[in-house]
């Protein structure tokens, strides 16, 4: 397969396959969770479960002060790489064009040099997060193969994207672009089978958490 054919393949059939696996898998996983259902709470409510659930979806974006103090690095680095990842994913012009093509909606982009800088910051944050995972006793203890796999497939699109944009490396730029797209497709394919699912399920988790508390009149 020549570099041109590879590029066409990753932009076409491979993207089809990755999109199909990603969406099918994510929807199956979400349906599986929701269909498990939960029993109706028969205790007399003190507050609203729905309001509590919705509130917690948002309130949990802000860490409590104690956690921030005790785990400053974890929280800050985590925030940086998440925000960075979303900025790069959703505010870079070529990416927006992709979403526009698939979803038929568009939004303003960030100036390219800012996305570029964000990429570097995000990559650094991810490296720091990995170092932290390897060195923090709790995280090292909890971490298994999947945690490292997920880290790898998260940083790959950022690194390959950076190389492709700056056309750095031994391989020709179109191959770099192909590798970049391929790395995203890898991310999409393993997404439903791993804890990357948290990107969707954390809404549900926070909702349930907030609903359980909200019903009892507690802001969680």
């Amino acid at each position, binding site marked *: 397969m020549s570099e041109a054919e590879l590029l066409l393949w990753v932009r076409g059939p491979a993207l089809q396959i990755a999109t199909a696996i990603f969406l099918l898998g994510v929807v*199956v*996983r979400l349906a*599986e*969770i*929701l*269909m*498990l*259902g*939960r*029993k109706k*709470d*028969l*205790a*007399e409510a*003190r*507050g609203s479960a729905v309001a509590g659930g919705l509130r917690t*979806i948002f309130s*949990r974006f802000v*860490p*409590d*002060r*104690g*956690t921030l103090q*005790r*785990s400053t690095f*974890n*929280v800050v680095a*985590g925030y940086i790489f998440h925000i960075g990842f979303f900025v790069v994913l959703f505010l870079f012009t070529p990416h927006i064009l992709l979403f526009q093509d698939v979803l038929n909606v568009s939004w303003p982009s960030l100036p390219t040099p800012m996305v570029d800088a964000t990429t570097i910051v995000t990559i650094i944050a991810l490296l720091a997060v990995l170092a932290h995972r390897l060195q*923090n*006793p*709790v*995280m*090292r*203890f*909890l*971490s*298994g193969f999947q*945690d490292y796999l*997920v880290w790898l497939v998260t940083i790959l699109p950022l690194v390959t994207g950076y190389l492709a944009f700056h056309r750095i490396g031994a391989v020709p730029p179109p191959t770099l672009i192909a590798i970049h797209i391929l790395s995203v497709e890898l991310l999409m394919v393993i997404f*439903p*089978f791993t*804890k990357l*699912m*948290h990107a969707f*399920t*954390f809404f*549900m*988790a*926070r*909702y*349930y*958490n*907030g609903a*359980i*508390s909200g019903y*009892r*009149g*507690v*802001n*969680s």
Partner: protein
Amino acid sequence: MSASLDRGLNAFREQIDAPVAAFFSSCVHCGLCAEACLFYTETNDPTLTPIHKLEPLRRVWKQEYTFWGRYARAFGLTRPVTDEELTDWETLVYDSCTMCGRCSMVCPVGNDIAYMIRKMREGMAAAGHAPPDLVGATQRAVTIGSPMGVKLPALQAQIRHAEEELGFSIPVDVEGADYMLLLSSMEIMNFPEFISAIARIFKHANVSWTISSEAFEATNSGIQIGVSDIAAELVERIVAAAGKLKVKSVISPECGHAYMAIRWEGPNLIGRPYDFKVVHILELLEQLREEGRLRTTGKETQRLTYHDPCQISRRGGVVQQPRNLLNMVAEDFVEMPETGTMNWCCGAGGGVSSNERADDLRLKAFNRKKKQLDAIHPDAIVSACSNCRIHLEDGLEEYGMDMPVLSLTETIAEYLAGSEQAGSKE
């Protein structure tokens, strides 16, 4: 019948619901829950990380309720949960977790870990992996009516004693009273002053109340050990007594898990809503205060702080009431650095205090509370859970700290307007 791995795994399967599935799907092993758990922060033992305590339950979820997990199991990629593992997890689930729910408050993806521990205990108990002390307490609760083995005559003796001190009678089995008061065995045995304090306040506020001789025990070992069938049986006793006495409300006393059991889990355990209300004593006192029926004179000059019992504030929703009540009687009320719904557990809830095996660990974990207290140096701690109070006293003694631990209800009673004891605490 006897406990077995099969029954335990079945209980896991039965307990797993959408929230559990959403929680397990969301965990990214960030480790923040460890920093929210006093058992980890005071031991630095990574195995005590809250989410790790749920590992067997997670595996059952994955293998039973996810498409991919079923295949992974078929291909031998995941191992089934074994009895040996449950043995290993027993201390994690019972000894080093009070179900205080602090981890549930900090988890960035919103996992309610305490909710899952409660469910996991169902399987652990069914598999025969509950701590022996908790098994004993539960058996006493069912057979004798109290986990501590307190029988009616003991209560009657305390009531008589209180009546002598008060000079008026305490209503027992009064049909048609507005409120039926429950008591925890600890209050009866360790803090009988509570009974007379309540009696004085209710007389002062003109509350129509009674104690049932058939169901006075508020505690529920069933929800601590994690057997809903037994917990339901204990709740049914209260429901029956409330029905018999035709009361409008049942009062949950100063006991954390008792409130959780009767207020929040009760109707779900018995599978039907109550036809009476359940109020916590602090809720009732606050209501009386708002109505102007609870009046006090004088104020405590000592520096007081309030220790939130987890099941009453964080997990129960009674947060502001104790503060309003304390401000009524305390001149110098100070909050601990992390308080209210973010308060640190004393380390003895969720059955840990009934589990002798965990004694060293809970005293070690108490160091967290010590640090909190060291930051504000109060003269006395006020709380609203006799279990917390006993452990606070234990802990303070262990760490050589001299500090009285007071009941909020009793403190209020001491400053009742028109009370001959007002202002003369000692």
